[in-house]
């Protein structure tokens, strides 16, 4: 697949993988290989709740770590968590999440923008997890975010892309890489994201909680490639009525 660039770094894979939900590092490792992912997200947690070996498993699979700020509800929490991640993982990349509601895990737009501005000023490469709002997407780009990551539907819901039109509008509004983040349930969701003009897809639960995670990882990889290729190929317009693909000219007279 053609390469993409985020924050000055070139990536050959347009499928990013989340590490959440895998039973053990070996399961994650198998999924990374099957997804051909180069970037894998990790969370920052107290050491008692974070068995070691995760970073090593990700790196051994040939991927690099993208720390997230999962679980943060304020800009302040998210900024501190990003700084902890930079210290722990020696990367200035961060997937910025600032959640506004515990039940839906939807982003808090106001806190998100405040945190994004601060982290950009602190030298981070910010990939911002956001609602599918093209205006907010543009504000995040203006704030200096390296990528904008709209949700297709709530985190872990597997509901796919509930508002394809909004994702399409975001594609027009944002010129930095657009990465469809939450809500992927299966391969067709990933293909649709790419057909709508997203540059990449991030999937976590769709893979880790699939009956066969490596198989789903491979399916998403193929879907991302298919969707990207279809986007470039240019789909036909949707018509209300049929349009014959075979002309009538030269049709033989065969009625008795």
């Amino acid at each position: 697949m053609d390469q993409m660039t985020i924050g000055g770094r070139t990536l050959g894979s347009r499928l990013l993988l989340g590490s959440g939900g895998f039973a053990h590092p070996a399961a994650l490792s198998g999924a990374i290989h099957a997804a051909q992912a180069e970037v894998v997200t990790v969370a920052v947690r107290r050491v008692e709740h974070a068995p070691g070996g995760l970073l090593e498993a990700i790196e051994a699979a040939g991927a690099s770590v993208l720390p997230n700020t999962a679980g943060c509800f304020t800009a302040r929490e998210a900024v501190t968590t990003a700084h902890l991640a930079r210290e722990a993982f020696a990367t200035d990349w961060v997937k910025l999440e600032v959640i506004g509601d515990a039940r839906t895990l939807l982003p808090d737009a106001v806190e998100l923008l405040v945190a994004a501005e601060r982290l950009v000023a602190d030298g981070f490469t910010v990939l911002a997890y956001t609602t599918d709002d093209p205006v907010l997407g543009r504000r995040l780009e203006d704030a200096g975010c390296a990528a904008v990551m709209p949700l297709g539907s709530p985190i872990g819901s597997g509901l796919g892309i509930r508002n394809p039109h909004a994702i399409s509008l975001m594609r027009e509004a944002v010129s930095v890489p657009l990465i469809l983040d939450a809500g992927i349930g299966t391969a067709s969701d990933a293909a649709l994201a790419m057909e709508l003009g997203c540059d990449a897809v991030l999937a976590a639960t769709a893979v880790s909680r699939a009956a066969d995670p490596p198989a789903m990882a491979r399916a998403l990889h193929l879907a991302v490639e298919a969707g990207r290729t279809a986007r470039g190929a240019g789909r036909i317009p949707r018509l209300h009525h049929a349009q014959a693909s075979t002309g009538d000219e030269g049709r033989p007279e065969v009625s008795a």
Partner: protein
Amino acid sequence: MRVRLNGDWQTLPEGATAADAAAVVGVRPGDRGVAVAVDGAVVPAAGWGEVVLAEGCTVEVVRAAAGG
């Protein structure tokens, strides 16, 4: 002296440093993939032994966990 270490109150000797607190949860300076914050400010690993903890302060010691 009492400090809140990863959410639990712990008693440490007077003059204890961030390195001492990290050791309580099994982390040493030089360990890979860990970070420490004292009262919300990240302390670079090289400085753990120099940051003296104050009574009642909050210490967080973190690592990568599956997520996102």
